[in-house]
């Protein structure tokens, strides 16, 4: 059985190197001629970045304390609530319960920060946060319910007026409409349509998705298409 312990704490030599980390790395770059233009751009990028604190990234989240600057160049992500590679839930308490919404906000801001300023992955400070610690109902409440409310509201309004128009045009009342097979089919189509197509762009997206699912198959079968045309020629 391959007993495997995650490679955690490396000898202290790595930490002594951190102060000299970037200069050493830059000198290794200079060894290869190919990368001199990149080397200079890397240095200039490092020099021109003062210490922008993560506050600039978080519009909506309430006061985030300024980071502790470890290295003079780009600041790595830092937040007092980010402890040991994960969010410290005890700092997200509101009225005795965990405020999941602010956890979601904090994680969004962290990811945004890292997307704009990618950082080195470190064995000494591994990131172990998993979004599944946030309970499902928090996600539902925040993301699913507002959209569902909007769609259901729209569906109800349209449904009401459609029922009224059909009644005024054909004289078939609401109860008789629901019994009619044609009307039931239309209702089904309407529900499916609303679920799949919420914006105009969704139509294009769906078409592209369909093409995508079969594209690879077509590429593989291209050589067989060829054979069929060949045998036809022979006969």
């Amino acid at each position, binding site marked *: 059985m391959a007993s495997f312990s995650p490679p955690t704490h490396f000898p202290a030599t790595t930490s002594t190197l951190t102060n000299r980390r970037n200069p050493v790395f830059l000198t290794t770059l200079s060894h290869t001629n190919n990368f001199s233009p990149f080397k200079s751009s890397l240095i200039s990028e490092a020099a021109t970045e003062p210490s922008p604190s993560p506050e600039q990234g978080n519009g909506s989240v309430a006061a985030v304390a300024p980071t502790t600057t470890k290295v003079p160049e780009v600041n790595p992500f830092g937040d007092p609530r980010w402890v040991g590679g994960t969010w410290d839930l005890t700092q997200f308490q509101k009225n005795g319960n965990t405020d999941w919404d602010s956890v*979601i906000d904090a994680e969004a*801001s962290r990811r945004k920060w890292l*997307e704009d300023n990618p950082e080195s*992955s470190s064995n000494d400070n591994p990131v172990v946060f998993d979004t599944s610690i946030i309970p499902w109902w928090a996600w539902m409440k925040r993301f699913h319910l507002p959209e569902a409310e909007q769609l259901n509201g729209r569906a109800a309004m349209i449904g009401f007026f459609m029922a009224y128009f059909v009644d005024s045009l054909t004289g078939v009342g609401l109860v008789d409409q629901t019994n009619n097979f044609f009307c039931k089919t239309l209702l089904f189509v309407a529900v499916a349509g609303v679920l799949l197509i919420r914006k105009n762009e969704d139509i294009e997206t769906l078409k592209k998705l369909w093409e995508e699912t079969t594209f690879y198959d077509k590429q593989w079968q*291209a*050589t067989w298409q*060829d054979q069929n045309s060949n045998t036809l020629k*022979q006969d």
Partner: protein
Amino acid sequence: MNSMVLKSFLGLRKSSPETSHFAVHQKHAAISFPQKLKVIAGKTSPKLQGRNLRVAIVGGGPAGGSAAETLAKGGIETFLIERKMDNCKPCGGAIPLCMVGEFDLPLDIIDRRVTKMKMISPSNVAVDIGRTLKSHEYIGMVRREVLDAYLRDRAKENGATIINGLFLKMDMPKDKNSPYVLHYSGYDGKTGGVGEKRTLEVDVVIGADGANSRVAKAIDAGDYEYAIAFQERIKIPDDKMVYYENLAEMYVGDDVSPDFYGWVFPKCDHVAVGTGTVTHKADIKKFQLATRKRAEDKINGGKIIRVEAHPIPEHPRPRRLSGRVALVGDAAGYVTKCSGEGIYFAAKSGRMCAEAIVEGSENGKRMVNEGDLRMYLEKWDKTYWPTYKVLDVLQKVFYRSNPAREAFVEMCADEYVQKMTFDSYLYKTVVPGNPLEDLKLAINTIGSLVRANAIRREMDKLNV
């Protein structure tokens, strides 16, 4: 109907010595007859008189080497044309466990056994996979020059003729039994300088000459989309090398590659740090810098000893077969999506093609035709299509965007996923698995994707 068949067959047998010497004018009528029969069963091909079937393999990599060995063992006169015998190919160099057994590779070919992998998401969430591996399971890291040379030497031992030369072009045969004439520059131990122009007449050609295959061009096989893989070999200090003793890393993220991944693979005494892309080839240097940045802590103090790049086919060529010419390996485009694995499939396709030729020619006694070679394609597609399709779906779903990649890394933490992934990778079969676990996995995958995309929407709001 039967008597007609026999008549034409006998007629051919009498005239076959002449066909092998290119005198074809009166043979057209007799030869066109069994055309219809050939579509049904290639075994009605004429018996070769006085000689065995001749096959030339262009390209001496894993595909060419294993094809040559199988053909030579099957009693066929085999010629393997390779332009550079000590070619140090740029390559990830990872082979699955099953390859060692299936191809009887000696264990000293394998420089390293990777038993742990680390997947790192765009936000640096790191997940270790490999807990489910048994003690005898590993991913082998090899040096291509060692592996290729071994396979070629083994083919030579079995009777194949290895020719050091560069394939130039090929003359198509005039009819179903005429040979292909290959033109190549023979080097023959002459160091440097232009080789001597030579020709070689063979009955069947296998194109195993890689992503920029000349044989493919000769048969008008069509083009494929390809990824460019860029890799730097970096010698890192010994204490850092300990971390990569048997561990490989995979970095995903838009900074590292928009449609592939960045990697750090351990080699014999250094690491290979690289990345690849299909859609943004012009930005490959930028992606490479980003990959190095992400791995910075772990490769700090390293010296770049070599820079290399190579194309990786994304899908098979439109035509993998034409007449009595078949493509195998990278020349055919047999590289999987998602992981970009090609060595095993190259070797296996070379072997499968050779087996089809051996069978169709009854150990070299009969001429083969396109139908026999199509058997190889049929067997290949049937055996490996599920693997390719599954990896394609995985790539489409999980390499799409940063949220998808975050979900991907989250899913990799699950033990069931790790077990399924390794089982299918190491043994090259799509394992069905437990349906209940599969359902749980599906629900978890959807959950991960939904969460990651939801956070993405929050991130977009922050941008505004």
